[in-house]
């Protein structure tokens, strides 16, 4: 597909990187020539220097033939105008990054409708949502939902005392008395789909799919003591902090926000009367301890500095806070933090990039691809895709165990109506089902691609 990315800041660059990897023809527009030069040195893209909301610049970038325009400049207004102009000039799909808090949930929906956007992305809100999901299920590193939440996938990092370690996978369902599927394993740098006699080790990161209820049962039976976080400390009063606190407060969680800026604190206080807002330097460990870091269930660091977020997360972890989540923008630092032992790192850039890659694949639907949703797992080592099943004689009504599947592909779930099935070898796919497929090698565009 021909895609135009307007603005090559942090978000724009991550987005274009993932789109180029997906094999799209990408043109980048930015008003500053220097970052554009750097980008052409690294990625195989074309660049146009100019104002992204200007029709001449957009015409030069080939907006008339573009299938998708992504506006990700630093200014919401420019993004919206850019999408509006691009739409009028013939781009069928437009995506705008809109982050200001005055465009709240309701106005965002309205804006999306008025501007005829395919997607309005608020990175802060998305990051907050992801953190919120993790806090609800603190044992997981990451959580994704399929088929409107019917069906969930979590990533867990195994510790020595985990019941998963040392038992072959085929015996795990009986041992933990729940229906689930270990569908992907990351050991070291390698990501693969395990067979039934595979034995997990300490330090493995695994992906599990299960129905929501079964997942709760599994986590209970695992003996994990970590319950839903009841007391959360948030460092940095950013927009993400606001969205997160709002959600947490609505769910009855105690929230404490620490920020240095007095005005910001007062503004937050006005917006979130139920939260306790502390004005002070959060990098002072004394302050954190004074505010009861020891008694917190979770600590989320959301300041603008990646390094600060990571270091303070370590500090909190050392004080036995059950769940620590730093926000990290730069990709390299995120993986470094994970290597050093932080299990969950949230990166708004990556969330947005994944979302757009997914959106681009969904757009390709009309061009032959069939992907409903797409998630990248295990540090991009694996993908989970949701397909709609059509009446394909090679796939329908054949027990999974007799199907000639490609290696490193796994049917992780079948969703039939409102019911989710964790498949065994005897299950069959029926027309009208939705199927979740996990793959670690190669790209799938259609469900029939899973066959040899």
């Amino acid at each position, binding site marked *: 597909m021909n895609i135009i990315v307007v603005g090559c800041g942090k978000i724009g660059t991550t987005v274009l990187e993932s789109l180029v990897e997906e094999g799209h*023809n990408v043109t980048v527009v930015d008003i500053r*020539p220097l970052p554009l030069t750097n980008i052409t040195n690294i990625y*195989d893209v*074309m660049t146009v220097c100019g104002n992204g909301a200007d029709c001449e610049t957009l015409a030069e970038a080939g907006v008339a033939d573009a299938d998708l325009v992504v506006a990700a400049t630093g200014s919401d207004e420019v993004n919206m105008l850019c999408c509006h102009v691009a739409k009028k000039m013939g781009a069928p799909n437009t995506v705008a990054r809109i982050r200001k808090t005055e465009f709240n949930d309701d106005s965002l929906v309205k804006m999306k409708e008025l501007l005829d956007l395919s997607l309005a992305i608020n990175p802060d809100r998305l990051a907050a949502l992801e953190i919120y999901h993790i806090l609800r299920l603190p044992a997981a590193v990451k959580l994704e939902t399929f088929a409107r939440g019917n069906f969930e996938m979590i990533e867990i990092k195994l510790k020595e005392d985990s019941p998963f370690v040392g038992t072959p996978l085929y015996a795990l369902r009986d041992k933990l008395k729940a229906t689930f599927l270990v569908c992907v394993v990351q050991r070291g740098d390698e990501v693969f789909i395990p067979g039934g006699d595979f034995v997990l080790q300490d330090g493995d990161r695994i992906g599990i799919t299960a129905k929501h209820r079964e997942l709760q049962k599994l986590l209970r039976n695992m003996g994990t003591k970590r319950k839903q976080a009841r007391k959360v400390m948030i460092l940095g009063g950013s927009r993400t902090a606001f969205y997160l606190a709002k959600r947490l407060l609505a769910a009855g969680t105690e929230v404490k926000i620490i920020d240095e800026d007095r005005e910001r604190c007062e503004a937050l206080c006005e917006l979130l009367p139920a939260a306790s807002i502390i004005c002070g330097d959060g990098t002072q460990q004394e302050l954190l301890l004074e505010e009861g870091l020891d008694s917190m269930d979770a600590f989320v660091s959301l300041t603008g500095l990646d390094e600060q977020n990571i270091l303070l997360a370590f500090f909190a972890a050392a004080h036995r806070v059950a769940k620590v989540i730093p926000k990290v923008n730069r990709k390299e630092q995120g993986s470094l933090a994970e290597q050093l032992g932080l299990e969950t790192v949230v990166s708004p850039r990556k969330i947005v990039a994944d979302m757009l890659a997914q959106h681009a694949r969904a757009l390709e639907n009309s061009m032959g691809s069939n992907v409903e949703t797409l998630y990248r797992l295990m540090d991009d080592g694996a993908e989970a895709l949701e397909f709609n099943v059509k009446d394909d004689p090679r796939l329908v009504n054949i027990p999974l165990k007799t199907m000639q599947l490609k290696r490193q592909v796994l049917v992780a779930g079948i969703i039939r109506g409102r019911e989710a099935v964790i498949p065994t070898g005897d299950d069959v796919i029926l027309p009208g089902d939705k199927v979740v497929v996990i793959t670690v090698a190669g790209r799938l565009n259609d469900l029939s691609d899973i066959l040899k």
Partner: protein
Amino acid sequence: MNYRMVFSMIGRLLLLEAVLLLLPAACSVLYGESSVWALLASAGVALAVGGLLVLILRPKNKTIYAKEGFVIAALSWIFLSAVGALPFVFSGAIPNFVDAFFETVSGFTTTGASILTTLGAHGEALAMSHGILFWRSFTHWVGGMGVLVLMMALVPTGSGRTIHVMRAEAPGPIVGKLVPRLRDTAKILYLIYFGLTVIQVICLLVAGMPLFDSLVHTFGTAGTGGFGIYSTSIGEYNAACQWIITVFMWLFGVNFNVYYLLLIRAFRPALSNRELWLYGGIMLASVAAITANVWTQMPYTTFEETVRHSAFQVSSIMTTTGYATTDFNLWPMFSKCVLVLLMFIGACAGSTGGGLKVSRVMLVGKAVGRELKRLVHPRSVGVIRLEGKRVEESVVQSATAYIVLYFLLFGGAFLLLCLEPAFDLESNFTAVAACINNIGPGLGAVGPTGSYADYGTLSKVVLSFAMLLGRLEIYPLVLALLPGTWTKE
């Protein structure tokens, strides 16, 4: 320095050359010549060396930074020419390897300077088999648009950073892409190139040139090379052929972006290209000046003939092709001087031609104008614009530095050449100018009817490097020769 990636790319390029050598081999087979074995043996060598490099190295890290890009471009061209010289040596057409290397470098860099002589007999064809002649001219076609660009069009390199290689090989001060992907850009360029080539062959066939001659001369025109078959070059053919070649030389000297814009029906931006207008303007003014000068001082029989010869020579020299229809050595001094000046200006950026390039001359001219203005008005602010767009200050500096380096190297080569006792100043000066600007024939002893055969080994090597310097636009070759490029950091 990522040695593995550099030499693996060179290996791939040699494999491509092995494939390219099959084309002249097929031509040899058609004519039933024994030179087919020389060509096949050379293809074998290319296959063996390239295959070994590709199989042994297998780089894990495929990243190409700017440095690797320059080195790949420089070394590729040297390796390519060394292997490309083998058919001449194996077939005995040019037994001396240095001579053969000179001839091949001249071919790939689209210079067209030859060490072959036809003993001065008027209109005699070169004593070479068709297969070898075909290869000799085919190197022009391949070198014109760039071998590395061809390789990128054909094989995926698996690295997003190949722009550095393209930037090192493609001519002009600013290298951009036509479409987002480099590979697609390379494909489009080659399709345009191939299309124009086919059209020219058809035109020449219609005008009455035999098929083999049409192919050879089209390759020479398309790459703006200049290797021909006869000692009298294009003078051997009728007026229609000469006009056709005049026009096509001019067309291949135009920035290929213009053709792309025409293809996607963006007529207005295509025709508002300033470089194109200046290029055409300089050409017309030169034709008018030379016609007037020659007509008054040394008239040909008809006015048409005078115009035809002036136009042909101007088009040939400015696009740095180097074909001739007449011995311009005999022209009056003013006309010769105009031709020498045209040698330096060269064709448009992004074309197959050589020289300094019209856009670089424009750029530096504007920079000079700005400096003059700044002397008069010390506080004046000047921004340089090219094609309606502001040019980055770094690009202006790079272009100015380029010109300085160009003349320094020109001087160096000229000095080394003057060690030759047998040649006069005019011959040596124009020999270096003709080689570094990828033209071919100069004036005096190296004029259109002369050859480079009598130069010594050192001079031939110096001139070979001058040709490579000109084609790769200096920086890659100079950087590849700097020791700092190769040491570990």
